[in-house]
């Protein structure tokens, strides 16, 4: 594999949901160690795109390549092997509620990677330590704060040794005072060289991290470029208009929890609207 081969590449993804073209010919690729940030109003298709990238939502057409090799989505075995290499973090954590933090991290190591319990436990402990939760290993999700749950979810994904991580608004469901601890973990990851595609409304945080901003609207990528270029004063970019709207309304703290999930269903009928209006409604 040449140095320039992207780790993950998506070509012309199309997804139609309930008659809506939720993804309209979306292509993107990401090289080793890069961080790309997806931004855009709720309903733009960010979550759908991220879930198409690991076939949790199978795209209606298009191709996905891991390190230059196309993923054969009809082969269940290949899909499972592919997904192991693509870590996914969800807005609402999705921890396994009946398992302790340690068991959450360990279960796929044993079931999927076939590790022994001992080996898996060691690895899980190490990953929990990495996200600062060594002392919470025995706690169950019911007894963890939102920020701690999301960090366990990150540890769980990292334990699989993914080549790339997809993060879907990892802090949007968190109380404001818990956002920081999760962002710190994400920043550490980026600095350690993890390849990441991150959907977020944390503009200034992600601007400091991202190699590229990708602005999505109504299922399309409408702008992409370095955060510096897109956010430059007088850049006249859609990205900048959107971001200044967010900072105006939230004082740069990003959007609060509820808007993500609840916003989606309401968005479906209004594809005719201008994106700006959509963004305003959302915020």
């Amino acid at each position, binding site marked *: 594999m040449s140095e320039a081969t992207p780790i993950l590449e998506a070509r012309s993804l199309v997804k139609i949901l309930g008659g809506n073209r939720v993804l309209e010919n979306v292509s993107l690729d990401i090289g080793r160690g890069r961080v790309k940030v997806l931004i855009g109003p709720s309903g733009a298709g960010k979550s759908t795109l991220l879930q198409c990238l690991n076939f949790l939502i199978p795209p209606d057409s298009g191709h996905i390549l891991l390190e230059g090799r196309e993923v054969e989505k009809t082969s269940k075995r290949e899909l499972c092997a592919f997904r192991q290499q693509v870590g996914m973090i969800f807005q*609402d954590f*999705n921890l396994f509620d009946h398992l302790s933090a340690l068991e959450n991290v360990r279960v796929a190591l044993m079931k999927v990677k076939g590790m022994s319990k001992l080996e898996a436990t060691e690895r899980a402990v190490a990953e929990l330590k990495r996200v600062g939760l060594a002392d919470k290993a025995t706690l169950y999700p019911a007894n963890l704060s939102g920020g701690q749950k999301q960090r366990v979810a990150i540890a769980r994904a990292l334990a699989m040794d993914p080549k790339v991580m997809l993060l879907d608004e990892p802090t949007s469901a968190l109380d404001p005072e818990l956002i920081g601890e999760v962002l710190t973990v994400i920043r550490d990851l980026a600095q350690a060289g993890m390849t990441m595609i991150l959907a977020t409304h944390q503009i200034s945080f992600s601007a400091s991290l991202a190699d590229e901003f990708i602005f999505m609207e109504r299922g399309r990528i409408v702008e992409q470029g370095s955060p510096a270029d897109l956010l430059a004063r007088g850049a006249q970019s859609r990205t900048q208009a959107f971001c200044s709207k967010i900072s105006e309304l939230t004082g740069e703290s990003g959007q609060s929890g509820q808007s993500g999930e609840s916003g989606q269903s309401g968005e479906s009928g209004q594809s005719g609207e201008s994106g700006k209006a959509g963004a305003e409604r959302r915020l």
Partner: protein
Amino acid sequence: MSMPYLEFLRGELGPGLLDGLWVSLVVIAPSALLGGLIGLTAGVLRVYGPRPVRWLTECYVSLFRGTPLVVQVFFWYFALPYIRVGGHGIVLDPIPAAILSFALCSGAYQSEYIRGGLNSIKRGQIRAALALGMTTRQAVTSVVLPQAFRRALPGCGNEIIYLIKYSSLASIITVNELTGTATTIAKNSWRNIEVFCTLGVFYLLLVTVATGLLRLLENSLSVPGFERPQS
């Protein structure tokens, strides 16, 4: 009305009911086990099965919840022999007929609790499991079922308690379990009050023991977030 109660209990009623108790257990234990298995299978199929299978299991549940158990017992015992398959009727002995009736009926109810348990597990956890590289089967067996089972357990336990009580229906197809034996003793001795009160105590003890065992199971599976609801 000569013999005092204790003597009657020791000499005739007690040994009789103990024999009956044994037969009751022979009916109840396999019914509960089989009913649990049927309920689990039907519950999973009702939620995850392909559409035609889902429809079939729905029909099964409606049928067995919608008709009186006595009718079902009569059907398996008295009607089945008249249904000719390749010239042969299927004749069931009383005990197998009772077990079949109870297991099928119990399974229909159990599947309700299992289904409720399965539906209470958020889809997101399945997505997370798949995203880690698990197969759908692994996601269901190691993420969904253990949680659904915990959520379903109180309901399923209740159903087993019901089963203990409706196992008395086996007496109407000549199974000499607790109730059948008690009826015979009552007829012969004319001591109805003592016989049926004692019979009641036997069922009460049976139910108490079963409740205790179920509670032990629930406690051993209890984790934060899945505690038994305080009653």
